């Protein structure tokens, strides 16, 4: 449950930000104390209990009253039970609510499909004015939190099973996808925790003489259209990788762009219109659904020749 670990670790980041910005407040839903924020700023920490619709509405109201609210909430529940409040109260009413959402993707593992957030990117990508971020490692997650505070409008930050990527310190620019590995045979466009698997897949492919470009698609909305078009023009073979249904999320967004461009072949990796019914820990679930490094490498290979 690394998404939880790193989401709660943002408590320290938010505390630092709150020392500079007296309007920063945190709204939680039985999601831990967010230490040391809640101890340092007890008047600015609101735990509204397990009530996602209310949670998002309260946060929108806080924004309306001049505050900068950061919400900490479970990804599957806040995006689905709180969806209309995100749409109406945050987006339609233009309130800058920032949502830190652990338990995203498949990180809940054996807890089962109720706890898998595999629709969140598609749902929130639909909403006008929404920014949807899916950082690849803990350092990037913090950079995404800092970036969210700097922009107007609501932001959703997905915290999945992310682990530190060695040596990765790329500046975080919303809407720009960093190229983590250059390559010319196939482009692997991954988001969130899948970036780590994509990097491993790159190394496996390299051992076989296959050159794979790896892009970190940390911004699902706005998405880096230019980077996608460049991959289509220069390489033509694109694999998307996400802990999400293949419909509507990263793969969906890339498919829309490629269809409009009229170039490029696409293979979307993710959940294929089925819930995960097996009981298994996270690493085994990745293998079951074809999102581990070996499966990604095999899929990429299948596009060649």
């Amino acid at each position, binding site marked *: 449950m690394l998404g939880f670990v790193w989401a709660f670790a943002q408590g320290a980041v938010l505390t630092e930000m709150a020392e500079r910005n007296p309007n920063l407040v945190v709204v939680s839903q039985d999601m831990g104390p967010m230490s040391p924020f809640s101890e340092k700023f007890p008047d*600015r920490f609101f735990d509204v209990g397990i009530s996602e619709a209310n949670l998002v*509405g309260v946060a929108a109201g806080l924004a309306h009253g001049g505050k900068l609210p950061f919400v900490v909430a479970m990804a599957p529940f806040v995006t689905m039970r709180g969806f209309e409040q995100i749409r109406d109260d945050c987006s339609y009413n233009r309130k800058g609510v920032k949502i830190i959402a652990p338990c995203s993707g498949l990180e809940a593992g054996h807890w089962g499909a109720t706890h898998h957030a595999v629709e969140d990117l598609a749902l929130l990508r639909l909403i006008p004015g929404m920014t949807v971020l899916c950082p690849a490692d803990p350092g990037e997650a913090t950079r995404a939190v800092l970036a969210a505070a700097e922009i107007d409008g609501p932001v959703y930050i997905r915290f999945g099973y992310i682990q530190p990527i060695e040596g990765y310190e790329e500046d975080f620019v919303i809407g720009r996808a960093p190229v983590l590995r250059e390559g010319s045979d196939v482009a692997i466009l991954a988001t969130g925790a899948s970036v780590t698997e994509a990097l491993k897949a790159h190394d496996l492919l390299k051992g076989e003489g296959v050159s794979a470009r790896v892009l970190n698609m940390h911004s699902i909305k706005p998405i880096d259209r230019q980077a996608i078009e460049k991959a289509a023009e220069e390489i033509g073979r694109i694999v998307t990788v996400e802990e999400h249904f293949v419909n509507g999320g990263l793969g969906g967004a890339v498919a829309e762009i490629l269809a409009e461009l009229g170039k490029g072949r696409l293979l979307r990796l993710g959940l294929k219109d089925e819930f995960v019914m097996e009981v298994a820990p996270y690493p085994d679930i990745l293998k079951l659904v074809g999102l581990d490094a070996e499966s990604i490498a095999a899929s990429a290979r299948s596009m060649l020749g």
Partner: protein
Amino acid sequence: MPDSELTQTLEKRTAVLRRHMLTMAANGQLIHLGGSMSIAEIMAALFFHFLEVEGKERPKDHFILSKGHTVHALHACLAELGKIDADEFTRLGQMGTCLAGHPSLKAPLVEFATGSLGHGLSVGIGIALAEKLNGQGSRTVVLMGDGELQEGSVWEAALCAPRFGLENLLAIVDYNGFQANAPVGDILPLDPLEEKWRSFSWNTQVIDGHEMGSILGALEAFPASKGPTVIIANTVKGKGVPGVEGTARAHYTSLEDNEVQDALKGLEGE
């Protein structure tokens, strides 16, 4: 006791609001008439007496019309405040007006766009929390419908507000007894309603929502020493329109010329 001069002034204002709404419902324009008419007195008391709706960065006091479909009463208030032109009431929903069927950010003084029911109370909690931190003595009023209380999110919010104190939050329930298709009691009863709110640790007042003295008395009693307050206003759906008031038809209708004339006659004495 509220002074009688104020009461009379606000009763006159109420009659003007109803006249505007009759104009809106004339000539085949379909509006959510019933729930707009039932809140006329409450809206007059709020907008011409209780609330300070203008401020520097944001309104001094806040008003969220959570039963957004009864926006017509709000539009009537905006005309009386000189914010919109009453001539536009014959062109509801037409291109170029700000008169949407629910509160729209296009309209002046509309703080929060609503429409889907069950959103306003949570938003009101957030505003009240923010204003407590801001420390400017601001008050937040959320006006809800009775049918709206069937939304679960209302009760998430009802459970939440007292936990944070929020003496500065006032909820008003327009208990006109009808929802879109039938009496609330036939669809999904709310009673005992006051007991429900009280058991959720709210301060409660039950008033006649068409009796200006009662409304002013309830507003004077706000804020309570501890916790948020809800005023349950017993009202009549479509109040002031003979033959329509207290019927399911009142919910969304237009009025025939003779119905408008009858209603105007009734208002002449007021």
